[in-house]
């Protein structure tokens, strides 16, 4: 792990939905100040659940951290409400581009600044967000529900940016976007991290891309962290190359596991 002080620490957390469905079975993650950390894993591994546990949105879906602890800037937050956690500066960008569809793009951004007051401050932040996303400024009066997928993704990232986050939890920003747009959005994410010094916990299906923007990554399977390390090390790891990056020849493997891997690989690469 990098030498920087972690701003966020998950200590062996366990999460249950409806008090019975055990989804996270002891997850430990650290996000250092000012860095991007990637969280990778197959569908249903529990990545979104991990983010919701941190942001407190879990409670909204009748889920609960039943064991372990989440520490943010030295304070335990896993029992707090989403609202209080947001006040401490953690903002989750939920997967699936959840814009407020009947509001305009600019109104969406203004809701993002909800905790940051009115007037001057709000206008300054709007200009800051528009400087990262000029496209949003161009279309500021467009009803968000009618914006293109890329614009909607920019809108939800910009919306969280309006809140001056101390930590951003970004869930699958590339989902369903064209490759060129994905590239554009990831460049902006990197720029945000560099210039605004915002630490980001990034959940991504596009492993190759995630490993380029994040210097450190965790891999999750079935509610557990099965691997973690610096991205350049993970990139060389045979398992990662095999079923997440699809760089080796699968045909040479014969075990039952490899069949499963093949299926998984197909999912990953679509």
């Amino acid at each position, binding site marked *: 792990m990098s030498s920087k002080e972690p701003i966020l620490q998950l200590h062996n957390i366990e999460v249950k939905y409806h008090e019975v469905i055990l989804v996270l079975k002891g997850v430990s993650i650290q996000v250092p100040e000012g860095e991007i950390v990637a969280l990778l894993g197959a569908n249903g591994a529990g990545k979104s659940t991990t983010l919701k546990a941190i942001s407190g949105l879990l409670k909204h879906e009748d889920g609960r951290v039943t064991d372990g602890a989440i520490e943010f800037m030295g304070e335990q937050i896993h029992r707090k409400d989403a609202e209080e956690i947001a006040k401490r500066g953690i*903002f989750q960008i939920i997967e699936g581009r*959840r*814009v*407020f569809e009947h509001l305009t793009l600019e109104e969406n951004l203004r*809701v993002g600044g*909800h905790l940051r007051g*009115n007037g001057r401050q709000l206008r300054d932040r709007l200009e800051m967000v528009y400087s990262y996303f000029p496209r949003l400024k161009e279309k500021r009066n467009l009803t968000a*529900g009618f914006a293109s997928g890329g614009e909607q993704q920019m809108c939800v990232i910009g919306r969280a940016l309006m809140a001056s986050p101390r930590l951003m939890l970004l869930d699958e920003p590339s989902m369903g976007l064209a490759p060129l747009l994905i590239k554009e959005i990831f460049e902006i994410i990197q720029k945000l991290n560099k210039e605004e010094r915002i630490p980001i916990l990034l959940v991504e299906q596009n492993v190759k891309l995630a490993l380029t923007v994040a210097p450190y990554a965790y891999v999750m399977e079935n509610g557990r962290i099965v691997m973690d390390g610096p991205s350049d090390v993970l990139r060389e790891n045979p398992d990662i190359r095999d079923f997440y990056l699809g760089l080796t020849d699968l045909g040479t493997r014969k075990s039952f596991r490899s069949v499963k891997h093949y299926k998984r690989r197909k999912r990953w690469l679509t």
Partner: protein
Amino acid sequence: MEVFLNLVISGIMVGSIYALVALGWVLIYKCSGVLNLAMGELTLIGAYVCLSLYTWFVRPIGQPTLAFLLALAGTLVIGACLGLLTERFFLRRMIGEPVLSVIMVTVGLSFFFKGVVEFIWGTDTRVFTPEVFSKKPIPLMGNIYLDSVYLWSFVASIILLIVFVSFFKYTRWGLAMQATADDEMAALSLGVSAKFVYALAWAIAFMAAGVGGTLLGNVNGINISVGYLGLLVLPAVVLGGLNSVPGAIVGGIIIGVLQNLADGYLSQFTPGGVKEVAPLAFMVILLLFKPYGLWGWERIERV
């Protein structure tokens, strides 16, 4: 023609009161998905509170108009407080429960409020004494006259409608309410307090209903039947599409006009009650053709 215009114009005036109440109803529905079946009782409470304040103020102040305006302001303040309290004590604990249970709670609330009103104010019809607005008709043009009660009710409703809509459109909490209506989880992720949004919706509903009840009480006198407004609001909001604020306003006005026309042209052929039935009948017919109402949200689908 003059009869027709007269009916339409006074219909618009009364309709603006319905619009106000309908707006309150839609806010609660939009933000929390709850059909508030206690809306009629909210108008009732507002009307009686305003009446009491008025009788209380009018002697020391001397001037009926000023006393009424003060009483109206007082009704708004008390309405807001009652709204916040109702949400806090009856509805907060229902967050996360099935919507149907919450609706049943509003049914319970409607009986509760009605009981409270009868307990405090009795069941006799009461009127604002001395009269706030003179009954002298104001000539509009040609042979068309308008009671000043209607005109002032119209002005008051329109002012309040503008205030509420501007709040909704331009303020921080107004936007937060709209955001919560669109996607509660996403709003929550930005630190918007859903609890406070619900409380705000109830406060505004109480205020709008209270003023609506007061204005209507000025026209007809106040008794339990003011609560009938709560029933009239249903066709108004259904017409507008349940979750559309402009729809509720237009719906309210349409219902007002419709009611007046039915009363003016059809009541001679029937033993009575056309005025009450017409809006509901119209609602049923409209729903056959436009199941989402006139301006209802269909989910935005891009193609």
